[in-house]
């Protein structure tokens, strides 16, 4: 109501729509991966709005990276746990 600029959610959809041709030409599996990336960016709409960047796609890409990095950290931690379990079998055993 009463707003001059599109909201951050509208902006997000506009940016996503801009990649429609790119997405269409991707293979099915790649399309789904791309959708995941956009969903990752969508988790951070409030900070993106607060940032009020003139180039919102920069923020969205950074948000995608952020989620990717969280995933890397999570996997790394899992790997460490598995490695630890391998070196010291007593650590990883359930009681």
């Amino acid at each position: 109501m009463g707003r001059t600029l599109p909201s951050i959610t509208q902006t997000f959809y506009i940016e996503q729509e801009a990649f429609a041709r790119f997405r269409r030409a991707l293979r099915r599996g790649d399309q789904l991966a791309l959708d995941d990336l956009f969903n990752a960016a969508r988790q951070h709409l409030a900070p993106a709005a607060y940032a009020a960047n003139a180039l919102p796609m920069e923020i969205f890409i950074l948000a995608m990276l952020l989620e990717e990095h969280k995933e890397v950290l999570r996997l790394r931690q899992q790997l460490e746990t598995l490695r630890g379990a391998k070196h010291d079998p007593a650590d990883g055993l359930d009681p």
Partner: protein
Amino acid sequence: MTLLTGWILDLYETPGQGVSLWLLAEDGRRLCLQQDFPCVFYAWGPPHRLRALWRWLQQQPDPPRLERVQRRDLFQPEPLDVMAIETAEPARLPELFRLAEQNFPDLTWYDADIQLSLRHAARHGTFPLACCRVEVEENRLRRIEVLDSRWDLDTDPPPLRILSLRPDCDPAHQAPSCLLVEVGRCQQELAIQHPLALLNNLRYLLQKHDPDLLLTAWGDTWLLPWLLEQAETWGRSLPFNRDERRGIGWRRERSYFSYGQIVYQGQQVLFYGRWHIDQKNAMLWSDSGLEGTLESARVTGLPVQMTARCSPGTGISAMQMIEALRSGVLVPWHKQQSEAPKNALDLLHADQGGLVYQPKIGLHRLVGAVDFVSMYPSVMVKANISPEVPPPDGLTPASEAPGLVPRTLQPLLAKRVALKQRRAALPAWDPRRRTDQVRSAALKWLLVVCFGYLGYKNARFGRIEAHEAVTSGGREACLRAKEAAEDLGFEVLHIYVDGLWVQQAGFSSPADFQPLLQEIERRTGLPVGLDGVYRWVAFLPSRLDARVPVANRYFGVFQNGEIKVRGIEARRRDTPPWVAGAQMAVLTHLAQAEDARDLPALIPGALELARQALLSLRRGEVPAADLLTTQRLSREVKAYAAPSPAARAALQLLALGRELRPGQRVRFLWMRGWPGVHAWDQPTPPNLAALDLPRYETLLLRAMESVLQPLGVQSEGLRIWLREGQRVSQPALPQLAHLALPEGEKLALTPVCLQRQHA
């Protein structure tokens, strides 16, 4: 000279008599007193034009008193030299102003269209139901002294006489057969088929009880117009007005646009010396009732009949006008102020709303809901946000001297907080708990719209930059609260404009959250409260994509067992009562779980409730009224290119000569075939055999999905299971009760039993 004490009932201008003030005296008499009350309006413009206006006014019959004075226009840096035009007769002002404006359209006008009661409030401190002492000489009021304040928490309740009058059914739906009259504990029925007897009886009742308030249902839109028409036909008069010099006041129906919605308001029938309130045409009646309406009238200074029917926006404008009149600030007639130019970057930063996060989807245990108390009004007061004050830096005010808007809001905010605090301290049996609740709800609406009015271009003291400064202050406060929560080790699950949902392992009692509340108050300077601690709360995903969260769709159960739902079907006005009822029944069933871990054990019972609801639909046991969908018309019926279901229902009514206006609601049943709907307010009863049962089933299924999905019940399974209508087999039940839902596992529902699956 007589001295009288009593309460003000009504106040209006009477030609040749000044102001008529109705006083409910302590001894029970209802007196109409006359008071001299000269009124002023102002003109501003180039000196030669003001001189021309001066000459023109001097030539008018009974010329007004003219004076050159200095006054402040909030939107001008320096005080203005304006011409004050004072009419001795308040009733003459509107006509004189109309003529002056017609002849001098180039001048700027101030204080020209202010409600008489507001002028009176500014000059004498009066308000509806104010207790006052008056000096009277031959029916003329010589002096008035108000004994209480509109900010008092408790006032002596005046002995109001109320007569309620309503038809025995909704006249839009079917022809009423009688009118129900209620005075005190006495009830009476007046049959409609004998209009003459009805008129005589009603006349007798009005004269005998002489009520101060005529409380009706559909009084504005059907009952009173119908009664007055009958009275004319039969040559009888009905003494609705206490003031016999006046006729009935009529206001026409209208549709207007507000907060992105078309709103309809029916015509109004107003009395003089007595109030008429139509419960069905009163804004917010269902929230605040008579107590709330009277509370609004007291604080806004608007007449009771008007308060009952006007939006809170009109109320808050009225309060600002009283404050302006008192402090010598001019009230613009038509605001000239437009938005100052901004560059694109400024616009990008300023044109934002509140901070709305994407919640973490799913079920969460032991979550604290922290709310800012009246956040935006508090920001306005704390950061001194007003059109004439430069915008603050975040929450730091640019100037110490409070502006017009904070001055208006501050006592209102304080009164609401005091009412809320007192209510919280009262024992459960105290009747003031309920009245404090509705009064505080009425004040809440005034506070809420005050923010909106800052950004409304037609509001007299609105200014978009001030409006933007409020949301900016709100965002700053939310972020400080988020930082405080994270510094204290909490996880922030969700932020929604003025509320935060936070969680920390081992934190479960309200006392655990106290340090956080104090820290937020310290960092923001704004009052916060703990809405409660949820035993469990579920944030729901979007219907279209289960991975995408929705900001305001959730349900949960507080530790005291209270259920809170937002955005789901049960809260939506267009949901048929049968669907909403079934959804709430399931939620109430689930609310038995003291801990989220007990929820799976309650799923079979929830499914059984859903199944019972479906069965009763299929057996035709659900009353048709519970299947009604209510939708609002967004435009004229004929303006629809592709008629919506609501428009198709409205077309059925139009064919019967009943035209609906934009903003009016249409009630209808879903039917099979074309046009797919049956408008409820048709005289012909619906063919219940043709009800669109599959559609109702789908509506129910959707409502069930919303509440069961966060528990891990997959929608496809639910669909098949409920449609097939199979009971949970007895051997499966013990197994169900032991499902503990470890992380990463979901319940899969199949027609025969529930199966565990890896997500």
